């Protein structure tokens, strides 16, 4: 085979294999910039989910700041199990609010955190994802993405926990893409609200957790 044939054959194989992904991309085209769109000067940052701006309203989040007590809550983690924030008292918890299961950016964000569980655990922390999706939706999403951390359903009353953390988007009916690091005493140590279409990554979480660890080490030596 020539190089060209080779490339074509491998791209054919790839397109078969990635068929389901591509279907998803086609279905969610309104969320995903095409190369042509990405090239237009009016849309220079479309690689970072610019199209979300058209889907979601502008909002001014008032996320709970550091130093305040993190409101306790109990939410379904599976169709027949519940999880309370207070169960984690004594260790740091990372709360990752995200708008919705299945949407592309959340998928990347949760996939990234899923790979980082070891790092979070090494820093003594547990990770929890929260969205307004129901427990069955979460179950399917977690199974599809092989997620190894709990997804909580802020489903009834809808968005109640997100509201209490100041990260609910009334007009959109979903939460912000917001991160909270709660310390072992149940206080907000760090919070961050990302633009809704932008995956905030994990560097901020790791810094916050290390900061907590350093504080504890300082306390222990004084």
């Amino acid at each position: 085979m020539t190089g060209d044939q080779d490339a074509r054959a491998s791209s054919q194989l790839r397109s078969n294999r990635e068929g389901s992904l591509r279907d998803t991309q086609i279905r969610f085209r309104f969320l995903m910039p095409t190369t042509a769109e990405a090239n237009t000067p009016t849309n220079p940052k479309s690689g970072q989910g610019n199209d979300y701006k058209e889907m979601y309203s502008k909002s001014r989040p008032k996320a709970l700041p550091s130093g305040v007590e993190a409101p306790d809550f109990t939410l379904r983690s599976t169709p027949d199990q519940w999880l309370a924030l207070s169960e984690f008292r004594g260790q740091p918890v990372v709360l990752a609010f995200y708008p919705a299961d299945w949407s592309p950016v959340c998928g990347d964000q949760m996939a990234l955190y899923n790979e980082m569980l070891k790092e979070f655990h090494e820093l003594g922390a547990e990770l929890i994802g929260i969205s307004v999706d129901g427990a069955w939706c979460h179950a399917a999403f977690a199974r599809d993405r092989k997620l190894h951390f709990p997804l909580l359903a802020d489903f009834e009353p809808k968005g109640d926990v997100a509201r209490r953390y100041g990260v609910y988007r009334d007009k959109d009916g979903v939460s912000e893409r917001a991160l909270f690091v709660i310390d072992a005493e149940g206080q907000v140590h760090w919070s961050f609200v990302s633009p809704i279409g932008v995956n905030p990554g994990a560097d901020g979480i790791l810094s916050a957790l290390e900061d907590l660890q350093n504080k504890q080490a300082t306390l222990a030596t004084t």
Partner: protein
Amino acid sequence: MINQTQLKLPDPERDHIQGAIDAPIALLEYGDYECPFCGEVQPIVREIERRLGDDLCFAFRHFPLTNVHPHAEHAAEAAEGAGEQGAFWPMHEMLFANQAALDDESLAEYAAALGLNAKRLIQEVISGAHAQRIHEDFKSGVRAGVNGTPSFFINGQRYDGARAFEPLLAAISQPARIA
């Protein structure tokens, strides 16, 4: 230890690089051999390398998302194993050209096709001989703010634009960069 705020890019002590280490522009990619978007961006990277020639130093670090891409870790191991035999980049190209077939058997075939010691390579893959290095790459990326793949850094600064040829080339060849 990799600097947390500004990546040392690339690090000649550990990174796989193409081009001269003292080239004015350093482009670093964090990628995953099983990620379709990484596959799509490869021809763009090749073309940018061709256009910029001696002005560019390109480096690649592993960022496998192993839960969504079950073969990504072994593929990264295979690239590192090939690197041990002096063939990181040929294997790198081979893996991206064959993203649909990255099972161990295929990895061994690619090693043989590249004239490498396939037995040694696959043993390294299975035993996770390079797992620590791959994880170091991953961790350095997370620290630097990598939030998905592919992620690019131009002279240590994260590139947040579209993963298309024109915008990437424009960002890379800003006049200030080629003094």
